[in-house]
């Protein structure tokens, strides 16, 4: 290839690459934002009409978490929202985030369990990405362990420390 045509090719490659690389980082998320706004509006309307399924109160879920000092792990509750509670468990610099979410308010989360090949008791258990193990208890409670410091086996063992019998029996009204 002659120098001038190499240069032309290089320039063209840059011209086609640069806009993609430099275009706003925001473009990728704009569609999601628009659909989130529509969803939020629909939720608010349904809520006003009393048609939105009601998720469990956050503080009603705290008692199902593994106790403080389970396997020497120190427990700190971080977020407590409608239908969602999260706590951090730490020991010697290793960290895991444990959560319970009421899938009443996030049905998309349920889909992945239909492909689950493992079980926690009778409930489906699966992984998400590299760092999560999760189970769907009584078709309503997604319990999850997220940790970059623990492997799947350790995360599964920790899921077993939730009060699973309590969660299976817990079914507050969604009205």
């Amino acid at each position, binding site marked *: 290839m002659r120098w001038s045509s190499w240069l032309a090719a290089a320039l063209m490659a840059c011209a086609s690459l640069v806009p993609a690389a430099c275009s706003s980082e*925001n473009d990728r*998320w704009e569609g999601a934002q628009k659909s989130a706004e529509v969803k*939020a509006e629909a939720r608010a309307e349904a809520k006003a009409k009393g048609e939105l399924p009601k998720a469990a109160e956050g503080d009603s879920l705290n008692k199902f978490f593994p106790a403080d000092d389970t396997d020497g792990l120190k427990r700190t509750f*971080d*977020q*407590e929202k409608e239908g969602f509670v999260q706590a951090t468990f730490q020991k010697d610099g290793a960290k895991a985030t444990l959560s319970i*979410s009421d899938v009443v308010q996030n049905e998309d989360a349920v889909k992945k369990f239909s492909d689950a090949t493992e079980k926690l008791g009778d409930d489906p258990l699966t992984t998400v990405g*590299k760092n*999560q193990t999760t189970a769907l208890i009584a078709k309503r409670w997604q319990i999850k362990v997220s940790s970059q410091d623990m492997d799947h086996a350790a995360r599964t063992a920790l899921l077993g420390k939730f009060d699973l019998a309590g969660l299976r029996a817990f079914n507050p009204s969604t009205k």
Partner: protein
Amino acid sequence: MSDSDDPIYKLVNDLPGTSVTGAVLHMLDWVAPGQWKNITHFEELIKDQTGEDDQSLIQQIGERAIVLYTDSSNNYQKAVWCFQMVDSVDKTIVAASAVNLIGQKFDLGFLKALTPQPETAQALDAAIKLACELASFGFVNGIPGDGVGEFAKALAGYGKEDLIRLAAFIAFDCVLPLGPNFIDKMNDAVSSSSLTDNKLFNAASKYLPGGGIEGQKAIIKKNIESAGGQLTDFAKVKGIEQGSIFEKVKGVVNFSDDKLDVVAAAIDMMTSYYLHTGIQSVARRVIERAYSEI
């Protein structure tokens, strides 16, 4: 000031990579080594928080985070507004282009006519700022009640953006202008001042727990009493003293004045460390929840 309606990804993506704020926060690395990375891309924050690198999973987490932040009933937006308000009140807006980066240092020599507020007003501002941190903590974590006790407990576990913001607050809003007895001064200022004469309080009161001015005053005081010991200990343990802070600041910023309160006021005006790290904190917590929920 108007509350920003910007979506969460835009708030993060719009954060400056290089700025006086970033330089001053990086300077505090010695207080909290390795705790803070100046992450100014939403995708990078997702990767940093979750350790995941699969693009379709990152997209899924980001989309759920956007849904959670956009739903105002989750209160994450209020936490961001609270941080925005703190950094926007009483600030001279100087165009970024007016700040000269000379070599590795930012030049603030042009801020010659700066007259800092009297000490009592600065102490009162610090007390209200601490109450705003409490309010944001409550909005993000969903703690019922005034949350004073939980907040004080949570301070001990602060990391990353939260920790560097706390370090900057102690350094620039407490120790530098008020000296080592900053807690006593904050307490006295709240007792002896009329809160409604304070601009920051007037802007912040709609976010503060307590219900009514007297109730809020009581919460501001309770918060100082409850968290004060930890803030003082933090300053002692980390060696945050007027001299050490001043020397470090001089390493990254040129000032025309050597008076400590002038330097503190200049940092207050020229940086948005509260909002900058506040946005990073709120976004991280929303991402953390999104990752747990998907």
